[in-house]
């Protein structure tokens, strides 16, 4: 359902993603892992048509990302890194707008909006402008916008960050159900315990290159242990002034 070959993206002299080659099957939940600046968000941006690659090819839902960007947009749901919300729309208005933009009629858009607001515990804050929402509410709103058009492929950039445990559990269960129904999910996460529970494919990226790509069954040990084996930790430094006599 997602396939890319030699996907590369440079920003000036800096190569953010370097020759990424990857396949994600229909109905799989693929977790893209890596430290800050590894190239995870740039990968998601290239696969969703937000950023064009300098070289390489990618197909999503059977469509070429470079040649058919509008068709792909109709088939995917995206939770972008910056959430992509309008300060001047309320939580509910965001969902209604999304429904109509993706071709739902008013009745269906309202019905799905109501359900998502209930499921994600957003009902009380439905009339709050996004500019006045907490980060968690904003994240849930953007997540609901990604689900509302009933996409074939979901791209979620850090979906569980800033989410309370109960909503996190609901989102987890929703995603597992969606994958079982054939929706392909591609997510990035720094929360390894959640990634380990939800994903059945793990891709580790560092310095723009894939350093490890395996299914959940092929994990040699716990995801966290394996992650720390692969990621170079910065040298520890003792901040001696912390906890010393106060000055």
């Amino acid at each position, binding site marked *: 359902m997602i396939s890319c070959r030699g996907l590369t993206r440079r920003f000036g002299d800096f190569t953010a993603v370097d020759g990424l080659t990857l396949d994600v099957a229909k109905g799989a939940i693929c977790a893209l892992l890596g430290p800050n600046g590894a190239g995870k968000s740039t990968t998601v*941006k290239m696969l*969703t*048509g*937000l*950023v*064009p690659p300098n070289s390489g090819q990618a197909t999503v839902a059977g469509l070429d990302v470079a040649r058919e*960007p*509008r068709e792909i*947009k*109709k088939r995917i749901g*995206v939770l*972008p890194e*910056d*959430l*992509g*919300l*309008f*300060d*001047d*729309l*309320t939580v509910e*208005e*965001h969902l*209604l*707008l999304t429904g*109509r*933009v*993706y*071709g739902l009629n008013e009745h269906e858009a309202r019905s799905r909006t109501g359900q998502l607001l209930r499921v994600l515990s957003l009902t009380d*804050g439905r*009339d*709050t*402008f996004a500019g006045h929402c907490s980060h968690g509410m904003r994240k849930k709103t953007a997540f609901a916008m990604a689900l509302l058009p009933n996409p074939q492929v979901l791209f979620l950039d850090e979906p569980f960050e800033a989410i309370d445990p109960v909503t996190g559990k609901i989102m987890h269960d929703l995603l597992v159900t969606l994958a079982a129904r054939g929706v392909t999910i591609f997510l990035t996460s720094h929360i390894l315990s959640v990634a380990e529970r939800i994903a059945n494919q793990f891709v580790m990226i560092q310095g723009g290159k894939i350093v490890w790509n395996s299914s959940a069954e092929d994990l040699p040990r716990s995801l966290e242990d394996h992650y720390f084996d692969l990621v170079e930790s910065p040298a520890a430094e003792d901040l001696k002034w912390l906890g010393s006599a106060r000055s």
Partner: protein
Amino acid sequence: MARIRAILGSLLLVFRRESKSFGSFGTNNFFLMSVLALGAAGAFLYLIMALVMFFPMSTDPLRKIPPSRLNLWPLSSRERWVLRVASPWLNPLTWILAGLAVWAARGKVTFGLWAAAAGVFVIGFIAPSFPLAPRKGAWHHIPAFPGPLNHLIRKNLRELLSTLDFYCALVLSATVAGFRLAGKLPAEALLPMTVLVVLALSSYAQSLFGLDGDQALTRYRLFPLRGWQLLAAKDTPFLLAALVLTLSMAPLPGMTAAVMALTVGHASSVNERREQVRWRFSSGASFGPSLLQVALLAIAAGTVQTYPLAILAVIGAYLGSTWWFGRVLERGLVES
């Protein structure tokens, strides 16, 4: 007191940085054309601009510190009191009002003028302390529009209503309507006043995406919408505002001028996005395109006043501009 000095110093820095955004009126069509065409004779128009700017300038500098942060700082009650009393003096309007008070005491300005200015200042100063409950704010009562872009248009109307351009045009329109009701406005003044109202709005038409932050641009990129649809959703509130504000004057030439302002403004809006600040005047594009926009909107309004069917040519030009710059917008939205 070192803590208070540090806090006041930071506040002054933040307040000065923010105050620079008030300078946006310097490239606003209404101001530029008033200076060029009227010079000192445009005092009434400058007064309207000053009046409209007075309210957002009447802010409490202490509000620049998030309340949670202020409460966390280890300040004594006395230090908090000093901060409360000293911080309003970081706002130059406080000094101006103090100066006016001295003049009022000496009889150089009327007490009524001082009281009116002080009243507006106090309202602007304390109003943000009373947040409205959800569903109570005026922003919730924006009317619905037909079609799938309803909420996008409502969002854009909220953006337009948070620029000073609209309120400047509103004051002008209300003044003209008042004169007209009193029978003191000659018929031949209707067209120039209509053009003046659209002129007051026109800089916004050069920066249609200026109040959209980076997040909004991300969403535009993700939505399966065409560029012309995004432009049309921006243009609709502008045309609606122009219609409402020129209805009591010369609506057909007014709408023509508004359509022409958008036709020319699309190029600047799409090609040179300038970030705008809420509750400020829109800053216009460079002088050449601004002059072209003003000249064409005035010519179009004048022509349609005489030959109403000429509006069809203006609409044709608008449709062409929307189609062409919609394509440019689509290409530009893909991050390079």
